[in-house]
């Protein structure tokens, strides 16, 4: 058993998970998961509902013990020193755990102390946390009277009041309106300055917006990991673009057919004289293709990177792993509804 002092003295905050498996009864919620997370990295756990994200985060937060495998935080086995490690971890579940009858400031003071800080430490940290989470205007209000967005922020504040080195946020933006989502994003990015941050979400765009790296989870297994670009790279070479052009379908087909940089294409008229081209290039040679289109007298109205769309990557990865293709993609400007329903 490692002592509190020994664990608190650890500087390395690398998380190493090897063969993590977690059963609920006979149901394996997480199966043989292995990954490594570097210090001060924001990592997103992406998966459908029921994929095992929350279970994985709860094991990392020390709320659940693994059925098999190892979780090492800063080189310390999490099962061996669970109580001491909890001092270094801040956790926000999907529904923020709040005592509704308490006032925000009073609640945060209590949480800070119960997580091992002295009164003086909590008092010095409290103004910073209130500022980081934009809670100034409600700091003296009763939690039960706050809006959902503010409660979520109080939830994040309770997770960071004790200055944890690892912050775990389970679906931090669920139920927030667009303005609150933008604010929450800035709060999460601010956390990176002092802590490693793990986020789970089934909202693909959000994960891409806030995370340095993504772990794709399906049926309890990690089916892929990497940055958005790395994940798209696992699906094949080449650049896929979606181009809107003013001109005739036949003219477009002529240019694309002659081009040396085009590997494959589809042309579809969308409006009176607007044509949408879906094209796969031999490498990233989009400038050359655009030049060829313009030189042929076609008006290029927009060029979008279709391959980088996380929805597409996610669909493909989970399809490869045998997943149902149903997921949510809120707020995504790149989102194609017909793809989501596919």
């Amino acid at each position, binding site marked *: 058993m490692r002592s*509190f002092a020994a664990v608190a003295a650890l500087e390395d905050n690398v998380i190493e998970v090897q063969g993590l498996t977690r059963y*609920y009864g006979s149901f394996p919620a997480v199966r043989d998961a292995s990954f490594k997370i570097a210090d001060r990295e924001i990592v997103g756990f992406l998966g459908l509902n029921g994929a095992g994200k929350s279970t994985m985060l709860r094991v990392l*937060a*020390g*709320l*659940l*013990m693994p059925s098999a495998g190892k979780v090492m935080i800063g080189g310390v086995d999490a099962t061996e020193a*669970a*109580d*001491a*490690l*909890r*001092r270094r*971890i*801040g*956790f926000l*579940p999907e*529904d923020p*755990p*709040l*005592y509704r*009858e*308490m006032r925000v400031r009073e609640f945060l003071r*209590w*949480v800070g*102390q*119960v*997580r*091992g800080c002295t009164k003086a430490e909590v008092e010095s940290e409290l103004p910073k946390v209130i500022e980081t989470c934009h809670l100034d205007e409600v700091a003296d209000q009763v939690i039960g009277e706050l809006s959902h967005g503010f409660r979520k922020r109080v939830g994040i504040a*309770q997770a960071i009041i004790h200055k944890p080195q690892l912050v775990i946020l389970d679906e931090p933006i669920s139920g927030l309106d667009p303005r609150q989502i933008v604010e929450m994003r800035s709060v999460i990015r601010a956390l990176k300055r002092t802590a490693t941050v793990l986020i789970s979400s089934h909202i693909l765009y959000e994960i891409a917006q806030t995370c340095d790296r993504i772990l794709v989870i399906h049926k309890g297994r990690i089916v892929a990991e990497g940055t958005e670009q790395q994940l798209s790279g696992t699906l094949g070479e080449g650049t896929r673009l979606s181009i809107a052009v003013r001109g005739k379908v036949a003219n477009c087909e002529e240019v694309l057919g002659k081009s040396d940089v085009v590997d494959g294409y589809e042309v579809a008229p969308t409006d009176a004289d607007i044509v949408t081209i879906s094209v796969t290039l031999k490498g990233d040679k989009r400038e050359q293709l655009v030049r060829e289109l313009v030189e042929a007298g076609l008006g290029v109205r927009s060029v979008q990177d279709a391959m980088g769309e996380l929805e597409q990557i996610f669909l493909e990865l989970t399809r490869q792993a045998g997943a149902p293709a149903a997921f949510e993609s809120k707020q995504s400007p790149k989102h194609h509804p017909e793809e989501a329903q596919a």
Partner: protein
Amino acid sequence: MRGMLLVARRDLAGYLNSMWGYAVIAAVLVIDGLLFNAFAVGDQPKLSSKVIEDFFFIAFGTTIVASILLTMRVIAEERQTGTIVLIDSAPLADWQIVGGKYLSAMMVMVVMIGLTASMPALVFVNGKVSYGHIYAGYLGLVLLAAAVTAIGTFASAISRSQLIAGFLAVMLSVFFVIAWMLAKVSDPPLKDIFSYMSLFDRHYRGFMTGKINVEDIVFFVSLAFVFLVLSSRFMAARRWR
């Protein structure tokens, strides 16, 4: 110890802010007062010591009910509302969580028991009764509250809902109260075991009549200890389930 006191402080504030603590105390005082007048004092002449004995008999029942009502929520409610995550994710040992919850419930119980003192005080002023009898009776009540509060805490620790916790606590308490009946219809060694477990007949009756027996004190304290340890063990086990 600090963690336990922090949990206790929060829970105590919870009792006071939610009105639940006030409601239970008020209900118990009203019932105690009514039964004290109707049953303990009555309309026939009685010895003061008999009145006090009857008062502690009444208080036995109301103390058990109050303990169950207060403790059925302590852990089960946190589980229902999801706030259990706050203490689960804190660097607290399971005994600190259980100890803090138990301590806060006991503080409310001691205040409630203390507030019933007006009734024996009336007998003391107007009749002839010894201090010792009253002290012994109150010691019995506090020990009873300690044991039943531990039973209630255990029931709350193993239940997902407050109702189930309350039902379990009632069943366990009833078992300990009627164990003397089981002793009557059992053969040794079960007879001796049930007889020893008899909360009222063997261990509380003495306090009612003003007698303090070390064996009874040990029984109540060990009953409380066993159920608190069980609660703590259960809290630890839930991380593995």
